């Protein structure tokens, strides 16, 4: 009788050589046949061969089945079960490390192969910005602030008040003139935030109270006020709110330094060469006064992903890594530093191999940017001129600027939940008006869709007492809670209406399931507009109103709802979840929750057609909107806009330019006639591949004078080329797979040729890269024959495509031919190499 063991593979790095060897050793003790099936890929491996196990590409969480068949199967099952239960195979250290890293809030860093090999001292934190920079460390010493101020016996209250007023005037004047000369909109906006603090009533009152009631001197009162707000804000659970502390500290310190006569511009140093600034905490005003000509990067001890300093650095394109505890004490002045903001990595005194790695990286990034930059500020449009507005989803004002820098044509979804969460009282109308109107001003003529509060039993908020529900997702959420919290919603609606006078504001309601809900909201809006008018407050009386299509019943009553609203936005996550009656966070039903089911695609198409029939505009703003592979669907379905995380915008726009609307229309018409999700998936993949080209190799994957000096550099250069060409997801993953394959057996085949290769799910398109090196490189150490020609073969997994495999097998055979190799060695142009390779096709 056959025995089976089922489990999900737990190791973070997938099944690598070490655990594979242990499985082999265990399996070999038994005579039974023991196989391991990776049910994700349907690959079956022989447990008595570690190589066979590794080749089956088992990744973390892959469903696996071990099958044991033979005389001693009972004992074998017991031994293998123990291995599985022992979590796993003595590799728990790696897991423990990852858990510790997760708990301490650090990202677990996976180093690229070349850096791993160098084993340098490094620090890891959270990166912001895109790129790696190199320079000499400048250790930033902050303001020399006193640590405390004592109360005085007696003070001249008026004199102290005057001192504060004067200082505030000076700071306000400095800030205003900085704002007037700033050419960076983000910088201007942040300076305005600081000016607002200077005018803030409770801030000014607090200072005054400390002077008049507690006998503090002018600087002492400002200092105490800063401490007061620090105590209040520090306890906020919201990371976002804690970040605002830095702004208050910044302003307070500036006021104090004016009163005390401490020079404020103590960061006004002239950096003599490329410089990396290392600080415990860099305040926004300090950033603004920095010499940015030579400032290449910033490393900060304090963790902050959302602070104004981080936002400013991003706006000035200066890479930054934050959250490395005590870093300002660990680096010496003048020490060379490498800052990799993509991986959140800081490497002191990097060696030549690491610098060469980053040369390759910056070349890759340069080429990627070169491909994308031309599209960033262009409108989203297909190759045949069909418009598809590419907009951004944001959750806070801070994300607005980076959305526009990334090329957002509009804000398709401004979620307002963050305004309401992590506080004990609902935000006031003024607070909300301030946020929404600033967003409207920054957006200008670009459309800004503000979605009203989308909250319910699944997202508890202390002052919104929503009773516990057994099934919150089918309970009171979104627009359904508005009747219970009429006052809170009224405040928000008034704030949005008032903001509508300052830009192209649109209003959208979440979780609508029937016409009645829309009618009720419209009536409320009508009353509020009359109210505002009687109060003499301005607003846009014809502010466009839209609803989210998340509930299938709303989709079914689209014709009636259309008569009452101006636009629709599809929340694809919830719509799919309610349509399929499948909780998207439940892994047991993920096979049901698939946007590629013909039924769902049909639903999207119907929504789009119905809306257009009524002359209404329709967009999609869920997670799947940002999936590059689905882009042909959104064009074909005919959406007016897609709205997604802003960092995805450049690549979406450049992919859009490769699509033809007529072909996408035909594709969707064909897809809706298919019967299963698998058929749609397959057809869509074929279509996408045809768009990028299905050739295994193109001239841009051929380099005849590579400067690679080592095996790892040659591999890295090759995978980077694949990433630039959009053929793989990310260089690090594919590099890992290739180096792992290389570790089993070198792929140096003699004749000066190496054929590094791998099969991986991270590969989109089967590819060949051909690299001829300027000087021969050592592949397996100094004693082996040098290599001057590298064929890197990257094959998709699963479903590799037999035609491509045939070509690769023919090429492999051809490489055994002396004349063929001579032809490749003598090729003068990439075209010559293409000629050689075409012989195999």
């Amino acid at each position, binding site marked *: 009788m056959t025995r089976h063991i089922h489990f999900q593979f737990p190791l973070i790095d997938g099944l690598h050589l070490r655990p594979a060897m242990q499985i082999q050793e265990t399996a070999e003790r038994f005579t039974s046949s023991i196989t391991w099936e990776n049910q994700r890929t349907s690959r079956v491996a022989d447990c008595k061969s570690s190589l066979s196990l590794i080749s089956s590409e088992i990744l973390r969480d892959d469903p696996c089945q071990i099958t044991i068949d033979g005389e001693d199967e009972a004992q074998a099952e017991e031994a293998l079960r123990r291995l599985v239960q022992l979590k796993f195979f003595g590799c728990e250290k790696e897991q423990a490390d990852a858990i510790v890293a997760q708990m301490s809030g650090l990202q677990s860093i996976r180093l690229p192969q070349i850096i791993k090999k160098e084993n340098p001292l490094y620090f890891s934190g959270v990166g912001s910005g895109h790129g790696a920079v190199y320079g000499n460390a400048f250790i930033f010493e902050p303001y020399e602030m006193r640590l405390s101020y004592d109360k005085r016996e007696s003070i001249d209250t008026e004199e102290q008040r005057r001192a504060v007023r004067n200082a505030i005037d000076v700071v306000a004047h400095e800030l205003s003139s900085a704002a007037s000369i700033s050419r960076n909109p983000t910088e201007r906006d942040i300076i305005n935030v600081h000016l607002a603090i200077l005018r803030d009533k409770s801030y000014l009152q607090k200072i005054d109270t400390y002077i008049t009631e507690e006998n503090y001197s002018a600087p002492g009162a400002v200092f105490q006020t800063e401490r007061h707000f620090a105590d209040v804000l520090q306890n906020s659970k919201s990371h976002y709110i804690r970040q605002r502390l830095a702004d208050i500290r910044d302003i307070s310190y500036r006021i104090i330094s004016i009163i005390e006569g401490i020079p404020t511009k103590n960061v006004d140093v002239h950096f003599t060469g490329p410089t990396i600034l290392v600080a415990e905490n860099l305040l926004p005003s300090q950033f603004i006064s920095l010499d940015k000509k030579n400032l290449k990067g910033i490393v900060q001890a304090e963790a902050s992903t959302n602070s104004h300093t981080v936002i400013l650095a991003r706006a000035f394109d200066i890479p930054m890594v934050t959250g490395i505890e005590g870093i300002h004490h660990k680096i010496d002045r003048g020490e060379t530093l490498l800052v990799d903001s993509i991986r959140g990595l800081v490497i002191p005194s990097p060696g030549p191999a690491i610098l060469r790695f980053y040369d390759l990286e910056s070349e890759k990034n340069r080429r990627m940017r070169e491909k994308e930059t031309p599209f960033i500020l262009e409108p989203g449009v297909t190759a045949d001129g069909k418009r598809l507005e590419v907009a951004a989803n944001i959750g806070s004002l801070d994300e607005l600027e980076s959305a526009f820098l990334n090329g957002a044509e509009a804000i398709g979804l401004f979620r307002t939940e963050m305004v309401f969460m992590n506080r004990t009282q609902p935000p006031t109308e003024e607070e909300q008006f301030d946020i929404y109107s600033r967003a409207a001003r920054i957006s200008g003529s670009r459309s800004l869709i503000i979605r009203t509060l989308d909250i319910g039993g699944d997202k508890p908020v202390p002052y919104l007492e929503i009773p516990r529900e057994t099934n919150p997702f089918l309970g009171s959420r979104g627009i359904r809670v508005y009747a219970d919290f009429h006052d809170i919603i009224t405040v928000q609606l008034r704030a949005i209406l008032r903001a509508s006078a300052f830009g192209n504001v649109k209003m959208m309601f979440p979780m609508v399931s029937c016409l009645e809900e829309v009618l009720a909201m419209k009536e409320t809006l009508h009353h509020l507009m009359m109210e505002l008018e009687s109060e003499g407050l301005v607003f846009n009386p014809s502010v466009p109103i839209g609803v989210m299509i998340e509930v299938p019943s709303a989709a079914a009553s689209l014709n009636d709802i259309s008569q009452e609203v101006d636009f629709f936005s599809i929340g694809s996550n919830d719509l799919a979840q309610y349509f399929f009656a499948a909780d998207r966070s439940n892994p047991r039903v993920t096979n049901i929750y698939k946007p590629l089911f013909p039924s769902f695609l049909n639903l999207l198409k119907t929504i789009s057609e119905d809306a257009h029939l009524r002359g209404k505009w329709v967009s999609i703003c869920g997670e799947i909107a940002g999936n590059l592979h689905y882009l042909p669907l959104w064009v074909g379905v005919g959406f007016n806009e897609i709205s997604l995380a802003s960092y995805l915008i450049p690549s979406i726009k450049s992919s859009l330019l490769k699509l033809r609307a007529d072909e996408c229309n035909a594709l969707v018409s064909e897809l809706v006639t298919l019967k299963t999700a698998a058929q749609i998936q397959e057809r869509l993949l074929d279509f996408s591949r045809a768009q990028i080209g299905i050739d295994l190799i193109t001239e841009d994957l051929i380099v005849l004078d590579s400067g690679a000096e080592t095996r790892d550099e040659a591999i890295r250069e090759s995978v980077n080329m694949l990433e630039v060409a959009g053929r793989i997801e990310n260089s690090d993953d594919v590099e890992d797979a290739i180096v792992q*394959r290389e570790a089993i*057996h070198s792929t140096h085949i003699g004749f000066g040729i190496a054929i590094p290769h791998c099969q991986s799910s991270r590969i989109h398109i089967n590819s060949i890269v051909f690299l001829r090196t300027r000087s021969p490189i050592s592949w397996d150490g100094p004693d082996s024959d040098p290599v001057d020609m590298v064929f890197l073969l990257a*094959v998709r997994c699963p479903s590799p495509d037999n035609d491509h495999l045939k070509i690769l*097998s023919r090429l492999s055979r051809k490489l055994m031919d002396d004349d063929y190799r001579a032809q490749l060695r003598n090729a003068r142009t990439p075209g010559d190499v293409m000629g050689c390779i075409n012989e195999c096709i």
Partner: protein
Amino acid sequence: MKIVAVTACPTGIAHTYMAAERLEKEAKRLGIEIKVETQGAMGIENALSSKDIAQAEAVIFAVGIPVQKKERFNGLKVIEVPVQEAIKNPGTIFETITG
């Protein structure tokens, strides 16, 4: 003299076919009749029939992973080498058979 061979490697996209090519070329040079079955990513190709195996004097396994349907070769003289050995030094393999 007739020889059969099986080539296979972990990924099954390149070495399998290089080894097959080298064994075929070397056999031709030595005037030996050979048939090579490849067990690669495309599955089994140029499959050896029971007739092929019955006529052969030996079988070469140039492999990096276990041979599939290995029982077909029971009773036949087996020369097993790593797949890259067949690519780099096919001559030596034939010497062990003929010599």
